[in-house]
């Protein structure tokens, strides 16, 4: 039963709204989006964009020189036509002299053209080099900073949102650098030059042309306001259609299982039909700007020709002058249009640059907060001492957590979604910093350890399984870059991944693409475990590492890893109780507090929450 258009629009316009990330389950949700709300300082932004270019100031000066040269040459070239036409049309002068004059002038003209074109070429060649390098630097700066921003930042951003910084925003800056700056400058020079030439040629005709300027502006304003309105209507319809497409293409398999194809087609055709109508209007109003403005200048051309012609007929103006004036009046609209078009580019570039720079200005994770000597190695004595933490001020997620873990021990966390299990491990490697209390490893406060060193000593298998484009071999080796092929295979065996890897098309050399979409969730988890297993880190964190792996395979993994865990401190988070049963200590978390702790038998004897869960009397949410 297909839904109505109104229902669909309501549903998918909100579904298409930005900022709705897939970050379900864990971690912070609120916290204001700190990089869009800042007040804009246009001048500062402009200067900062310029600073990327200014590094190449010597070349930039050359660019300006070439530009002035070429613009001047072009203006001079068009003016030269006046004496040429007047001379050849001047029947009073003997023909031979006129031909000789024509020849001379044309040689001069060729010279002027060559200078102008050479200038244009050198100018744009140099400018493109500067701007592309600047854009490359901006992208690099942005990426480097993004990689180093704390997770607090990433939690509040969708990937799509950040991607558009690189694509739309940086591209807009690039567009501005490539063209706008130069063409606006040369446009202004052109405009002023043409205007001067026009006034020199004929002041009255110039006035006619000038009358058109306010009409131009009024017309373009009207069209722009109209098209903007229809454009946003179109965007809304497009958003709804895209939202629908995204949801249903992702759920396509369910659609098929329920024989729901016909309904989906019907619903989509409603949205598509709505889009069709709105897109038509938007495209129409977007498309009439060109013909209306272009033909307005044809009107001005006609009037110039008529009035200029009449002046010539009355002997008040020369034919050569009219010829170049007509050219000027046709040209005149061009820099006006160009500048107004480029203004739009400049504004969107500025807006983009503000967003880009806002990210660059954010505080990255400091490499090293305090000066403490780095120990040669860590053993893995982990102590949490009265730790309290909240992602958002005033909303504590963990309250007064204390625990001690020794090398060789396996500590498990059990609890409902949102109880704070993942948060504890996130604090260990300083994805987030704690609000109160202290975390030490081998007696050293983790805040005193260099961040990179700390993280190198904690191998993590994260809840969300992520893989990189590259071979299976490379993906496992990500855990320790100098691992040999044999070590990779050994790690894969330990994680019970070897047998399925060998069944892949090219075994360990199979290229994983698109985050391993062609692997099952369980297989991805096995690869993630192998990746962590290959690392020599003394602390191992397994966050729902085997949730999609069957219990028997899980047991094989456990056996395989027993040896590995002997000298390591292992933290395990799991929904499934069979996963944590043989841990040295199980912490049952509820609402950010440890409500029960002890080993499996202790907790069963306690007949508390763990007992209820284990006997199936209650369910983890």
């Amino acid at each position, binding site marked *: 039963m297909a839904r109505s258009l109104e229902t669909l629009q309501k549903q998918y316009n909100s579904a298409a709204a930005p900022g709705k990330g897939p970050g379900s389950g864990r971690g912070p949700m609120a916290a204001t989006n700190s990089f869009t709300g800042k007040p804009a300082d246009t001048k500062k932004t402009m200067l900062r964009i310029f600073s990327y270019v200014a590094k190449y100031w010597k070349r930039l000066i050359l660019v300006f020189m070439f530009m002035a040269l070429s613009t001047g040459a072009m203006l001079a070239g068009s003016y030269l036509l006046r004496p040429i036409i007047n001379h050849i049309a001047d029947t009073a002068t003997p023909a031979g002299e006129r031909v000789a004059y024509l020849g001379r002038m044309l040689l001069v003209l060729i010279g002027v053209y060559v200078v102008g074109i050479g200038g244009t070429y050198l100018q744009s060649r140099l400018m493109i080099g500067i701007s592309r390098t600047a854009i490359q630097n901006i992208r690099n700066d942005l990426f*480097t900073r993004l990689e180093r921003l704390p997770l607090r930042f990433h939690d509040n951003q969708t*990937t799509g949102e950040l991607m558009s910084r690189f694509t739309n925003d940086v591209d807009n800056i690039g567009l501005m650098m490539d063209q706008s700056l130069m063409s606006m400058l040369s446009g202004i020079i052109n405009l002023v030059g043409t205007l001067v030439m026009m006034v020199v040629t004929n002041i009255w005709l110039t006035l006619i042309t000038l009358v058109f300027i306010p009409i131009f502006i009024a017309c373009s304003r009207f069209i722009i306001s109209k098209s903007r309105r229809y454009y946003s209507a179109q965007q809304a319809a497009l958003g709804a259609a895209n939202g629908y497409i995204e949801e249903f293409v*992702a759920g396509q398999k*369910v659609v098929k299982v329920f024989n729901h194809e016909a309904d989906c087609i019907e619903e989509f055709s409603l949205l598509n039909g709505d889009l069709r109508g709105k897109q038509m209007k938007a495209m129409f109003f977007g*498309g009439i700007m060109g013909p209306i403005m272009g033909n307005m200048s044809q009107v001005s051309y006609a009037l110039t020709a*008529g009035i200029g012609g009449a002046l010539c007929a009355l002997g008040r103006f020369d034919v050569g002058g009219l010829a170049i004036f007509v050219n000027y009046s046709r040209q005149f609209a061009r820099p006006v249009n160009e500048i107004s078009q480029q203004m739009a580019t400049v504004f969107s570039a500025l807006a983009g640059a503000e967003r880009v720079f806002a990210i660059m200005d954010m505080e990255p994770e400091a490499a090293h907060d305090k000066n403490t000597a780095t120990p040669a190695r860590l053993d893995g004595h982990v102590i949490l001492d009265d730790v309290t933490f909240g992602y958002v001020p005033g909303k504590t997620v963990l309250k007064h957590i204390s625990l001690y873990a020794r090398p060789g021990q396996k500590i498990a966390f059990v609890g409902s979604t949102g109880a704070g299990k993942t948060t504890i491990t996130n604090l260990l490697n300083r994805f987030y910093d704690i609000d109160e209390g202290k975390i030490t490893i081998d007696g050293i406060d983790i805040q005193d350890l260099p961040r990179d060193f700390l993280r190198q000593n904690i191998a993590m298998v994260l809840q969300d399984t*992520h893989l990189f484009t590259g071979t299976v071999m490379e993906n496992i080796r990500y855990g320790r870059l100098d691992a040999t092929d044999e070590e990779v295979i050994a790690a894969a065996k330990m994680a019970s991944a070897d047998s399925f890897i060998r069944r892949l098309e090219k075994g360990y050399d199979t290229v994983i693409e698109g985050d391993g979409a062609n692997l099952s969730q369980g297989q991805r988890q096995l690869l993630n475990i192998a990746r962590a297993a290959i690392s020599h880190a003394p602390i191992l964190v397994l966050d729902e590492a085997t949730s999609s792996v069957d219990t028997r395979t899980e047991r094989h993994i456990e056996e395989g890893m027993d040896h590995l865990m002997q000298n390591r401190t292992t933290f395990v988070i799991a929904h499934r109780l069979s996963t944590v049963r043989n841990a040295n200590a199980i912490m049952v978390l509820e609402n950010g507090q440890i409500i029960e702790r002890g080993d499996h038998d202790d907790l069963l004897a306690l007949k508390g929450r763990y007992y209820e869960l284990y006997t199936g009397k209650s369910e983890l949410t």
Partner: protein
Amino acid sequence: MKWSKYVKPYWKYFLLGPLCMIVEVLGEVLMPLWYSRILNIGVENHDVGFIVLTCALMVLTALLMMGGGVGGAWFGSKAAVNFAADLRRDVYEKIQHFSFANIDKYSTGSLVTRLTNDVTQLMNFVNMLLRMFLRTPGMLIGALIAAFTLNAQLARVLAVTIPAIAIVEFLIIRVGFPRFSAMQEKMDHLNSTIQESLTNIRVVKSFVREKREDEKFGRANGELKDAAMRALGVVIFMMPMMMLMMNLTSVAVTWFGGNHVIAGDMPIGDFNAFLTYITQILMSLLMMSMLFMNSSRALASSKRIKEVMEEVPDIDDTNAKNKDARVTRGDVTFEHVTFRYYKNSENGVLNDINLTIHGGETVGIIGSTGCGKTTLVSMIPRLYDADQGRILVDGIDVKDYSLYHLREGVGMVLQKNVLFSGSIADNLRWGDENASEADMTDAAKSAQADGFIRNFQLGYETQLEQGGVNVSGGQRQRLCIARALLKHPKILILDDSTSAVDTATEASIRAAFRNELSDSTKIIIAQRITSVMEADKIIVMDDGAITGIGTHDELIKTNKAYQEIYHSQMDGKEAA
């Protein structure tokens, strides 16, 4: 695929659009002509009246041109938008007919891009095509005719310059086109690099691989810059080259034309008009080459859409022999079934499976990750087809059912199950769109979902967010089961669909199955041994093969894998 399908219904727009643009072209060709008459006749004869009249005619022409341009925009957008909307509809419909294997081939993201960006690219291209591609050559031809009419002798200059320009253009396009495609490729590569680094940020940070990612990005970024420089270099070279050619041509025309004027066999007005036409001709040549350059993106999009449209759904029911058959009993038989994902890999996902399930039975399937459980059951509703062997439902080969009837008879709760945005009731009615309130609550009760649904403030009208992320995992699974139950399937398949439901609730669901679905076949894939222990038949799978079939009591004595699974879960717990 045939693109003409999207043009035919709108042929009027496709025709009228360019026709309107021709009005503009004609005007553009006529304007200089009238201007030359002002000079030749009006100025020469000092005839102000004639000049005023011609001027009025020119203004009128300009207004007509404006009308033509606006009309061109109107029909152009009608044609382009309708073209795109039909195309979008067809691509979407095509995806509806994709089999699971077809869907697996493309990622969700790439299908979405094709339906959104690529279609939009093509729409803009069609619009541009209608307004520019015909206008520009039209202008070229019009200006050429006008130039030859004005002075055929002088127009011969063009016989030299146009081929010269065409050759230069051709060379530039040949060099430029692949460079632009290369740039687009590098752009895509950079984007996927960014996307990967951002989605994997936690992995990157926890393994301290920021520098490595920076290097990777730096390489991709550098490659993009080089590719962009190479591509833009063509444009940078082309523009001045073309300008030079244009200027030299106009110098040549001025020289030869000037001599004609001096010799007295060409009026000065004609000379002026001729110069304008030369500019028009050269400008339209330049425009054409720019348009060619810009069409590279549209070409890429059209290829990607074509790929989807020409994808052959590998499962269809056109050759089904028994289209009216419906599933009535729920018997399932596998005969020597073999299946592999990679057609050239040695080991199949399933190897020579033989299996008989009787209508009404409850069957549990258990086995390790990746052993082929999901694949096995997916073949019953023909989500995948066997490579060898056959599957019979009620004694009829599944390939002989119509897909609709087969899937109506088989309800399946997928492992990676999805709820859609909308109310709970909307979602449940996927199973049966005409389900009454009572049917719905019955199904929800059987799936042990009624209770928590009623606890929501809005009950069955509670709005679910996309993917159902606002209910817990266990609740989501129970809603998915209720949705499948509403179908009243003869065969119900649950693929690991109660993993997040607690064991007590799961037991109640099983009890409801026994009572309410006694004559339906129930096939349950599970990881928890308690989920399958009571089944009439338990199938133990390993590495694409069935290693044991029997009841719990039989398997616990004979099957090693089953024992292992049992002990991995039940140790320390008294056996139920």
